[in-house]
C-alpha cells in the first residue's frame, strides 16, 4: 500500500514537473524575430548580397535558421564576425572573404545610354537619371555593392576605390 502511494505521489510529481517544463518551453521560447533584429542591427546594411543572400535581413534570418555561418558578411569584415560571435556565443573564425578596400560605383557618363537598368538594381536608390538621360551615382550614399554592374548593357560602370580612411595608431 505504501509503495503504491509513493509511486502515485512520485508519478504525479514527475508529471506535473514535465507539464510545467513543457508549458515553460512554449511560453518562454526564444523570440526568433527579436534575434533577427539584433543580428540585423550588427550588419552594415549595405544590402550588397555578397554573403549569398539578397540582403542584410535575409542573411540575418538565415543565420537564425542555422543555414548561414557568421563570417559571410564581406563589408562587415572582422568587426561584424566578432560582434556576431559575441551575440550568438559562437567561436571566432576569420571572415570567409577578405573585404577589399571601400569602393564606390562610377558611371562613365559619356557612354551611358540611359537605360535605367542600373537604377532598378540599386538597393539604396543612389543612382539618379531618367530614360534616355545619362545617369550618375550619388557617391556619398553608394555602398559599393556592385549590384548595378551586371545589368548595365554597355559596361559603363566602374568600381572606384575610395581613399582609405585613416585609423589612429595604438600608442
Amino acid at each position, binding site marked *: 500500500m505504501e509503495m503504491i502511494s509513493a509511486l502515485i505521489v512520485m508519478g504525479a510529481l514527475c508529471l506535473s514537473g514535465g507539464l510545467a517544463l513543457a508549458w515553460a518551453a512554449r511560453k518562454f521560447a526564444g523570440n526568433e524575430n527579436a534575434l533577427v533584429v539584433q543580428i540585423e542591427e550588427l550588419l552594415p*546594411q549595405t*544590402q550588397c548580397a555578397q554573403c549569398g543572400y539578397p540582403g*542584410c535581413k535575409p542573411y540575418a534570418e538565415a543565420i537564425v535558421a542555422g543555414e548561414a555561418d557568421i563570417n559571410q558578411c564581406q563589408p562587415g569584415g572582422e568587426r561584424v564576425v566578432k560582434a556576431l560571435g559575441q551575440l550568438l556565443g559562437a567561436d571566432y573564425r576569420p571572415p570567409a572573404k577578405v573585404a577589399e578596400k571601400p569602393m564606390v560605383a562610377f558611371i562613365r557618363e559619356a557612354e551611358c545610354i540611359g537605360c535605367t537598368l542600373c537604377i532598378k538594381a540599386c538597393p*539604396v*536608390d543612389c543612382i539618379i537619371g531618367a530614360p534616355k538621360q545619362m545617369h550618375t551615382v550619388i557617391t556619398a550614399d553608394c555602398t559599393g555593392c556592385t549590384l548595378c554592374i551586371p545589368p548595365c548593357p554597355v559596361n559603363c560602370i566602374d568600381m572606384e576605390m575610395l581613399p582609405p*580612411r*585613416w585609423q*589612429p595608431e595604438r600608442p
Partner: protein
Amino acid sequence: MMFGLAKKFDGGLKLPPNKHGAEAPSRILPIPESLTYYLTKNIKETHQCIVNIGETVLFGQSIARGLGHQPDIHAAYGGVIEAIGSKAGPYDAPEEQAVIIRTSEYKNVYKHDDKIKNKSDLLKSMGVAGMGGAAFPTGEKVQAAGAPRVWLINGVECEPMLSCDQCLMREQADKLVQAIRYLAAEIMPGRVILALESDKADAVSAMRLALGDVTDIELACLPPRYPQGGEKQLIQTLLGLEVPSGTHAAHLGILVLNVATVMAAFDALAYHLPLTHRLVTVAGQGVSAPGNVWVPIGAALKDVLDFCGYDGAATLRVTVGGPMMGRAVNSLDVAVTKGTSAILALTAADELAVYSAQPCIRCGVCTEVCPARLQPEDMYFNIRAGRLNRTRETGLMDCIACGACAYVCPSEIPLVASFLYAQQICRIEDEQKARAAYIGDLVKARDARLAARRSVRMGKSASREAAARTVDPAAMEKVDAAREKARSKIDK
C-alpha cells in the same frame, strides 16, 4: 573678493607657469609667401572649397564653406589659389586636404555683404571659432546658449608656457571691454563674469583699469590651477555647478567664450570682419626670441618659428598647443589654424616627457588629479585589453585630455595618448553605426516605394477588370447586333 571662497573643481595640479616672453609686446608676422587652409579634419570632410586653382582672392574673401555648423574659412591675405590637395596637417591623420594660396595681392579688401542679420549665422559666415584650442563653432555655441543665465569670459589660460590671452588682455583691454559690452547687448546674459588667474598680474591690472567703475562685468581673479581654463572646470570653480556627462554648458544656461573668441565675435558682428589672424605664443628653448606674434591663419609653422629665431638643430620636438595638451607635429609645413594657441620648439632643457611605460603600481595618483573624476588607470587597462565598451561605460568620452594623469604617473604610462586613441576609435564606430542606420533607412524607403507602386498597379488592373465586367447594357446590345450582322454575312 566674492570669488575668494569659490569652490574648487576636483583634481587638478599646480604647474610651474614657465611663461617666457609673456611680458614682451606682441609682434606682427611679415606676410608669408603662402597660406594653407585645411578642408578636412582627420580626413573627414569639414569644409567645401568654393574657389578654383588660378583664381585670385582678396583679403578676407571666403574660400571654403563650412559644412554643418563649421565656420567658413577666409583668406588672410589676397593672392592666387595655387593648389588644392593633400598637405601635412596638425591633427592625428598625417595628411589633410587643403587649399594653398600664394600671396601677391595686398591692396584690395573683400567686401562682405551685410544681408545676414541672424547673429549665429553671421558668426558662422565670418568664420568665428573657439580660439582657446578646440575651435568649437562659436555660432553654434551662442545659438545653443540662447539668452544665457551666466556668460563666462575665459581668460584663465592655465596651461604652462601659453601667454597669448594674457598678452591680448594686457594690450587690448579697452577693446575687450567694448567687445564684451557690445556682445552682452546682443546675447542678453543674466550675469557677465570675466575670469583670470591671479599670477598674470599685468593682465589683471590692465583689465581692472579698463573696467574702471563698470559694475555689470564681474572680474574673477582665481588662484592658478591646472586645468582651470577647461570649460567644465571653470564652471565648477566659479559657479559650483557640474556639467552632466554627455551635455554641454549650454544645458545649464551658461555660455563660455575665450577672450580671443570674444574679440573675433565682436569684429564679426560689429564690423563684418572675418577671423583671419590670431595671436600665437611662440616659446620653448628652441627659439631665441619667444613671445606673442600676430599670425595670419594659414601661415606655416616654419615661417612663424623662423621669425622668432628658430634653432632647428637644438629642437627635439615642435608642438602645436601647450606642453600639456599640445600635439607634436612631424612637419614644419603644418599651418596655423584657428585653434592654434601656441607653437613650442622644445629642447632637452624643456624637460620633455619621454614615455617608457613601466608597469602600473596602482598608486592611484592619476585618479586623484583627474579633473573629470575618472579613473585613468582602470580605463587604461580596459583599453589595453581591447574592452572599449567597458572603457566607454566608465567615462572615456568625458576625458578632456588635459594630460594631468600622464604628467603625474610615476610609471610614465602614456595615459592620455591611449584615451585619445580610444576616443577616436569610438567616434569611428559611432559613425559606422550611424551610416549603417542611414543606409538601412534608404533601403526601407525603397522597399516602401516599390510596395506602394505594386499596390497602385494591382489596384489599377483590378479596376480595369471591374470596368470590363460592368458594361453598359445598351452598348452590349449594339455589340451583339454587330456580331450577329457579321456572322450572317459570313454565313452567306
